[in-house]
């Protein structure tokens, strides 16, 4: 049996992966203290259990929100609502979530310099999402103009 790949299947895969990531991020809320303990155990440097636990909790919340918004946007796309202000709002929230994660990891950078690298990646991702958000905003305006040209 030949499996043909198309846009609908690709979208379905994206939705499944996003939902799975959301479930993992939600489950991670219960594993954060254990993960921080494990890090302190394997790290040869001064323990940062409290800082790391706080940082991971503060990271998980924007991550959950961003994934939820992503899932909403994918549902809109599946319903053929592509260039709508709802998607622009989703992208704006996602970009601010990225910046929030960057801010949290910047603070952790005072204890572990590598955290600045994570913060840099989060800022970079936030910027890219922000540019895409600006593109969608422009496309929404163009679509509205087109729809309201009689």
């Amino acid at each position, binding site marked *: 049996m030949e499996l043909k790949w198309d846009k609908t299947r690709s979208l379905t895969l994206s939705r499944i992966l996003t939902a799975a990531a959301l479930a993992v991020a939600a489950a991670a809320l219960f594993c954060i203290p254990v993960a921080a303990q494990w890090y302190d155990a394997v790290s040869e440097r001064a323990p940062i259990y409290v800082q790391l636990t706080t940082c991971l909790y503060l990271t998980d919340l924007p991550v959950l929100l961003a994934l939820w918004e992503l899932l909403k946007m994918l549902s809109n796309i599946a319903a053929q609502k592509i260039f709508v202000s709802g998607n622009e709002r989703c992208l704006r929230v996602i970009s601010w979530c990225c910046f929030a994660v960057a801010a949290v990891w910047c603070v952790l950078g005072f204890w572990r310099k590598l955290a600045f690298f994570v913060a840099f990646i989060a800022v970079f991702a936030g910027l890219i999402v922000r540019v895409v958000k600006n593109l969608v905003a422009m496309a929404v305006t163009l679509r509205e*103009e087109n729809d309201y*040209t009689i």
Partner: protein
Amino acid sequence: MPIIVNLDVMMAKRKMSAGELAERIDITPANLSILKNNKAKAVRFSTLEAICRELDCQPGDVLEYVRDGEEGG
């Protein structure tokens, strides 16, 4: 929007219903409603031409420029 579409006035003068005008100028009643209610962002010359032809009027009879702040006054 400082451009006002006075389609209602001309339609009343010519005693033409919205449905009839929409059919004659070949646009949907929904689009004619957008035009009548000043929700349109732009009007194609072909649409304007059809409106003027069917209502036997000039573009100035259906379009009016009103300075910002003067609308509804």
